[in-house]
């Protein structure tokens, strides 16, 4: 689908920005088990510019790589739906990139959830073939899995000076990629607690507050095993970035008590948004990205980072093995890590930005990329969290296949799907 033809969904893009997040879509698409072809509905817009052969070749160190250091006339990037800036049915940041490098970015919004994207390409990757994508954007634990399985090409850091310079230090040496060899963060989010202050009548500060008998049947946890176990582990004094099956068992036992006594109403994906907004839920484990959308419309809702810590998840850009145009992918990652480009994306996406300096650009605006000032976004602690929050944020560890099975089983026992 070309981006100069308005796709039916683009009309809703601005609406969607307020009412629907990409996680919203992914949960629901997940719930439909793929029956709802959100992918086809939303498969919006590849780049539109004419792709002529290009020989753009910036001076760069030529290493021992097996691919040419030239920009290919077109390349493919898979991302989640509603996860990049949109204006007049186009993606301005991608347009700028295409113009600068004289290429044609085929931007494919075909990731609805990590598991099914993995399922779709696993056999091809295992067979050592090109999956037709030069860049994919997957969440920490799935990205870690690809790295473990050898499905990802190492980055060529000489091509990424902007990333080197502007990647926020807290993203260095994450357990899923300890030496920063494979992953470049795209967007992040925090998992914490959301609550309706009118119904609680007090401020919540810790995960233990969710177990207050006054909120019986009005509390929900998340369907994402790592988020729910992570927060509960932190509450129990366990570090989720370095936990064992025994620790998961402890988290399970703690949660099980409250499942059995009906303290916990359900495990939700983004569905909690509606329920929190309309008072069906008093308090819930929530994602910061959803709260950015919910808080302005619901003044009585609050987001809190539990005092014992919160979870940080990141969607990471990475180059699949045997990709045909890895050079373009490198160029894009480096391009995105310019603060003004990251600011363009951030002003629309509203998740947490891993690029240093983007908030400064948003404070003043940047006419060179046609970006007006948006101090509201620049000062929003959910989009640019203060250092004190980031210091409390933990990344769930990369589980071995065996651990993952056991963790999943423990979690499924809680959600009634063991």
């Amino acid at each position, binding site marked *: 689908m070309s981006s100069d033809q308005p796709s039916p969904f683009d009309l809703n893009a601005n609406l969607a920005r307020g009412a629907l997040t990409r996680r919203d879509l992914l949960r*629901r698409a*997940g*719930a*439909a*088990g793929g*029956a*709802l072809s959100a992918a086809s509905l939303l498969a919006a817009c590849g780049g539109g510019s004419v792709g002529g052969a290009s020989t753009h070749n910036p001076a760069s160190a030529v290493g021992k790589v097996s691919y040419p250091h030239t920009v290919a006339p077109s390349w493919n990037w898979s991302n989640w739906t509603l996860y990049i800036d949109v204006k007049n049915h186009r993606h301005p940041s991608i347009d700028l990139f295409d113009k600068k490098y004289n290429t044609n970015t085929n931007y494919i919004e075909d990731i609805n*959830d990590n*598991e*099914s994207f993995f*399922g779709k390409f*696993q056999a091809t990757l295992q067979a050592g073939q090109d999956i037709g994508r030069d860049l994919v954007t997957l969440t920490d634990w799935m990205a870690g899995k690809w790295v473990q*399985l050898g499905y990802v090409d190492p980055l060529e850091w000489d091509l990424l000076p902007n990333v080197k310079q502007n990647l926020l230090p807290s993203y260095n040496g994450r357990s899923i990629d300890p030496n920063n060899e494979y992953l470049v963060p795209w967007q992040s989010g925090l998992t914490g607690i959301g609550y309706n202050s009118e119904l609680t009548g007090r401020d919540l500060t810790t995960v233990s507050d969710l177990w207050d008998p006054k909120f*019986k*049947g009005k509390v929900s946890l998340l369907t994402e*095993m790592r988020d729910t176990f992570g927060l509960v582990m932190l509450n129990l004094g366990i570090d989720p970035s370095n936990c064992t099956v025994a620790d998961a068992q402890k988290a399970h036992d703690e949660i099980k008590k409250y*499942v059995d006594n*009906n303290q*916990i*109403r*359900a*495990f939700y994906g983004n*569905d909690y948004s*509606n*329920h929190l907004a*309309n*008072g*069906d839920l008093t308090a819930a484990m929530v994602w910061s990205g959803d709260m950015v959308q919910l808080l302005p419309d619901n003044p009585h809702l609050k987001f809190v980072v539990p005092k014992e810590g919160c979870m940080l998840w990141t969607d990471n850009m990475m180059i699949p093995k045997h990709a045909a145009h890895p050079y373009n992918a490198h160029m894009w990652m480096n391009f995105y890590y310019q603060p003004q480009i990251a600011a363009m994306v951030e002003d629309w996406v509203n998740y947490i930005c891993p690029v240093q300096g983007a908030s400064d650009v948003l404070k003043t605006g940047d006419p060179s990329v046609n970006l007006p000032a948006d101090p509201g976004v620049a000062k929003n602690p959910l989009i640019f969290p203060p250092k004190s929050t980031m210091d409390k944020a933990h990344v769930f560890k990369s589980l071995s*296949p065996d651990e993952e*099975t056991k963790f*999943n*089983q423990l979690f*499924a026992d*809680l*959600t*009634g*799907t*063991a």
Partner: protein
Amino acid sequence: MGRVTKLFRAAPAYPLLLPGMLWLAVFFFVPMYYLLDMSTRTGNLIQGFAQTYHFANYTDAITSNQAQLTRSLLYAGSATLLAFLIAYPLAYVIAFRGGRFKNLLLMLVIAPFFTNYLIRTLAWETILADHGIVTHTLKSLHVLSVTDALGFTSGQRLLATPLAVVAGITYNYLPFMTLPLYVSLEKIDKRLLEAALDLYANRARAFLRITMPLSLPGIFAGTLLTFIPAIGDYINAYLLGSTQTTMIGNVIQNKFLTFNDYPSAAALSFTLMAGILVFIIIYARILGTEELA
């Protein structure tokens, strides 16, 4: 000799069967074969699943998911019964009293299908919300106290209870019940009813002796079209239910997509299919509807 002639005479029919058979082969038999083959394998996604004829997959799947299997049967059964009780009078009125509004009324029955299944179910989240008018009304009429006591609901709310799940399933599959019932009621020869009344049968008796038996094919088709998808449904249980109302579809989905445990998921799917098949056979025997098939 006779058999050969028969085959020969039927020959022109074979090419006509071809598209259907091909469709079945590609989209039914082949996937079924893979599923069956997968159901006795062991291993994991990364290292691959090896065929070890591990039939314990079946016994494990059944024993560890008894609660969900029972629940699926119970919820799908209740929803089918409810759908029947709602759809029969509805189809009856449209078929016998619809007059010139018949087509319009049928349109209205199908109208919800113009919207996506998921959206329709999400709408129920709003309808049954804790602070919504439905919950509020039922609460003030003390209906929820009764349903709470019966275990259909809990905590004076509708959402995240068995009642919400069953209501959602009933609503979503109601047209599948209504349409076959309508078709079988519509084609009943009204003169038979007149004859019955002429022979001094009262209306109730005429209904029981004529209308009801003649609509049996519709009842049979309607209940199957409702029950079979309902028992495998997991959207309603996911969106309207809680951890205590998960159905077998939720387990299969979780095993396929989250666990990547294809063998147990396949074994569970087959168990479910076998269960449904047995049910259909028994049901067909009881209704004695050989001529319907």
